[in-house]
């Protein structure tokens, strides 16, 4: 086996990554950039990165995803990509007329030490009418797609917020990586509080739009740039997702620079975490929760009571991004499903602690793994005898090997239709997940039953 020194650096038994449970940083940055109105992502590196990320994102969102590239050659890999970046910016601007270009670096440009900040400032001197240029440093040898996602949000806020901006929206809601339906749910929740708000990013339309009447060069939708510019004028920021590093937390930046109170919350999945989200909204807006949501909550509790016998005492494997897994574990704990194995692909110092704090009713998971992969999960799963697998499509083979149902959540989902619009957040999200989970368990029970009765 591998050398001992190397082995100690990882939480999995192997030095190599065997069936990865994480993607690379530029991918996350590109999706965040797609959530800004008039913004086109541009990857600074090999064209293959843009192609792979487009190809992969499209298989989940089933939507066109344009990502430009600075197309490094062997020469640029040796002498630097300044000229390539400048040509790429010229061409992208000419074709798309974007208001923002979101530049994400790659392992290639970072390895050779390309100083993109300097390239940008030099470019702006030559092209005074250039669109706003945002730079997210996203070397794929550091962190995962989630780090790239948060990095891009931080870069957007840091670069665009304008201290001189006139009045902004009352509430900043900065969301972790959630589905397009989740973003629409956040819109519904925020609008119902009757105050103006900025939702960043907002790819609810740009990555899940309708059929076109006319060709759309830039997709409709996204957070308006003017709103981002004025985020420093808001009364409060709510940041959904806690896995973000403090120095790359856009909400923390707004707190430091503009004195805006920050509510740092888990993704609102399940009753408990959604309650906390609504409490924060009530406090930040000074308005009470509209009765619509109180009724949704009540309906959810009613459903928990109706379906409890199907899920109580079951065991599930949950994997994916840290924030998704944490919130999902909290919800599962609420409905009586224990999670003996929870896993996330990226290294994290906070994962164990967060999971333990979120399991309030049942027992804490035996295995809480960060920096792990699907093969490690499969090897551990045998001893755990789970009854359900919860997470993205890449873990389907766990369910197949273990002969148990798989409820698809989060990202990526490319073996079901509608993967991009799975609703997870809020009371209605919890209701949807609850139905999905109970139904998956009921179907498994029904198929295994001798009688084949339709009352189950």
């Amino acid at each position, binding site marked *: 086996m591998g050398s001992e020194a190397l082995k100690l650096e990882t939480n999995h038994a192997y030095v190599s990554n065997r069936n990865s449970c994480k993607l690379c940083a530029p991918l996350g940055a590109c999706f965040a950039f797609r959530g800004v109105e008039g913004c086109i992502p541009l990857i600074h590196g*090999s064209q293959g990165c843009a192609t792979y990320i487009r190809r992969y994102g499209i298989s989940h969102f089933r939507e066109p995803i344009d990502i430009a590239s600075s197309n490094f050659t062997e020469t640029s890999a040796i002498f630097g990509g300044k000229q390539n970046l400048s040509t790429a910016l010229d061409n992208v601007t000419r074709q798309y007329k974007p208001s923002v270009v979101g530049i994400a670096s790659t*392992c290639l440009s970072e390895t050779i030490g390309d100083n993109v900040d300097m390239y940008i400032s030099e470019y702006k001197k030559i092209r005074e009418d250039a669109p706003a240029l945002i730079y997210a440093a996203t070397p794929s040898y550091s962190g995962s797609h989630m780090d790239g996602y948060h990095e891009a949000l931080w870069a957007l806020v840091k670069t665009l917020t304008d201290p001189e901006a006139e009045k902004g929206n009352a509430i900043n809601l900065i969301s972790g990586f959630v589905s397009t339906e989740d973003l629409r749910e956040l819109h519904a929740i925020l609008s119902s509080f009757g105050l103006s708000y900025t939702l960043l990013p907002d790819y609810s339309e740009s990555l899940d739009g309708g059929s076109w*009447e006319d060709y759309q060069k830039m997709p409709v939708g996204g957070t308006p740039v003017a709103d981002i510019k004025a985020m420093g004028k808001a009364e409060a920021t709510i940041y959904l997702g806690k896995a973000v590093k403090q120095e790359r937390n856009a909400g923390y930046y707004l707190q430091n620079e503009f004195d805006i109170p920050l509510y740092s919350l888990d993704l609102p999945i399940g009753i408990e975490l959604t309650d906390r989200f609504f409490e924060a909204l009530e406090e930040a807006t000074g308005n009470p929760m509209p009765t619509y949501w109180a009724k949704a909550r009540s309906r959810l509790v009613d459903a928990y009571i109706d379906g409890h016998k199907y899920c109580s005492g079951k065991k599930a494997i949950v994997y994916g991004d840290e924030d998704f897994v944490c919130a999902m574990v909290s919800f599962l704990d609420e409905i009586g499903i224990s999670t003996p194995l929870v896993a996330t692909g990226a290294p994290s110092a906070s994962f164990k602690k967060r999971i333990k704090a979120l399991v309030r009713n049942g027992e804490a998971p035996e295995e809480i793994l960060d920096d792990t992969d699907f093969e490690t999960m499969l090897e551990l799963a045998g001893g755990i005898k789970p009854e359900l697998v919860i997470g993205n499509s890449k873990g389907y083979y766990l369910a197949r090997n273990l002969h148990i149902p798989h409820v698809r959540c989060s990202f990526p989902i490319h073996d079901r239709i509608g993967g991009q619009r799975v609703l997870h957040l809020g009371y209605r999200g919890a209701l949807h997940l609850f139905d999905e989970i109970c139904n998956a368990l009921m179907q498994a029970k029904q198929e295994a039953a001798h009688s084949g009765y339709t009352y189950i």
Partner: protein
Amino acid sequence: MEDQYTPGMEEDFKAEILEKYPSKLKKKRSRQIVINNIDDNGDVPQIHANTRTTPGILTMRGCSYAGCKGVVLGPTRDILQITHGPIGCGFYSWLTRRNQTRPETETSANYMPYAMSTDLQEEEIIFGGEKKLKAAIDEAVALFNPKAIGIFSTCPVGLIGDDVHAVAREMEAKYPHINIFGFSCEGYKGVSQSAGHHVANNKVFTDVVGLDDTPKEGKFRFNILGEYNIGGDAFEIERVVEKCGLTLHSTFSGNSNYQEFVSAHTVDLNTVMCHRSINYLAEMMETKYGIPWFKINFIGADATAKSLLKIAQFFGDKDLIAQTQKVIDEEMAKVKVVRDEVKARCEGKTAALFVGGSRAHHYQELFAEIGMKTIAAGYEFAHRDDYEGRKVMPSIVVDADSRNIEELTVTADPERYKQRKSDAEMEQFKKDGFAFEDYTGMMGDMENKALVIDDLNHYELEKLIEHMHPDIICAGIKEKYVVQKQGIPMKQLHSYDYMGPFAGFEGAINFYKEIDRLVHSKVFGLTKAPWETSPELSGLYGWNA
């Protein structure tokens, strides 16, 4: 806006596209967008191909790593593949091409659903990743004890000074029973995935083919090069060639295994499906081992029949030829029933194909079989020879991007070179009009004045739809939704939209039915809501009228 394609609109289209480009780009694209003016000698115009995409232009192309790991080696099931680099590339190439495979037994090795990566971190980018790569190889051996291990380099590998070939040699010395080899397929090399194909061909030729002189049993043994078993194509081809009495020794690389590769030089004939991705291997095997090769095509029922007969005629056995003809007659009877039915509905409709290095050519056959006309086509990553035919190869200018891909110098193997056919036999073949090393390219098979576009980009695709209104467009997943959003059916020819097979006779039947379904789908009619009266719409969705 015009509703229907009319011949002659290509010139206007080209002019309008070019008008918007800045002068340098205009000059480049004007040589890549070509009206197929075929002259009296049957010669096609020159096209500018295999040149680097301009930065900032939304290309369909991928990278060298994708061509090497994803395309050529990906479909092989029992070479354990390790991606050496940060995590992204290994993840993105994990089963996304949907190649299929059938291990010999339930317990036979199949590593295709398995994605191993060294997942390089910042420390290794600074201090080097060789130690981690060696550890990964140790782990691969402990886990699977595979017959062979391939190491695939991603962008940073060469730059941080990792020598994957030295690591391969060292680890092979440690595990002498395992063949370990590395590929320098860093993503920035070359202009597209095509560079990676070449890198893969070279290594497979030097380190894999020729290690075992044991032939498979069978009288008429041949290989198929450049068939990747998307959607089960190789299974259909295997079914048909077996029925004819041929012995398919190895496919590079759909439904293949390592043992077939190492003994692939024992056959008497190499046939080439995808010329672009694998012609290098065919040429090198001919020089070293004396195996003649010719181009075949199993996409299209008529093309399949023609290819089967050519293979049978090469072996020259009367019974084989008779049996092959019998199989063709049997299969074509079934094909004809569906073809006639579908053709009645699809005749006169138009298609545009922008895909691959051979698919944009091959699939024109299938469309023609149901009476559909290909009004525009182009490749993503092909070279001039794939457009204009191999005769232009000596005149191709090698630019800096291609120069860094090694060209191997190959000589005849002193012991194993064996001429498969005598000079007299080869002379007779030629007299009979039987061509070897014979790819004549896509453009010669297309209609005079048809539109040919290399490395089509998003902007041009939009214009193409606006001007030419094809009834269906075939490309890849990156183009799929941009086409469908505009109300035009789209068929992916990389992944087949997870359908297939489309090769051979049964594949042709599947394809006819699929195209019939797509071009007659009523769903696009729903895009216009009852309250919308804009006359623009009926024009835009004119295909449905």
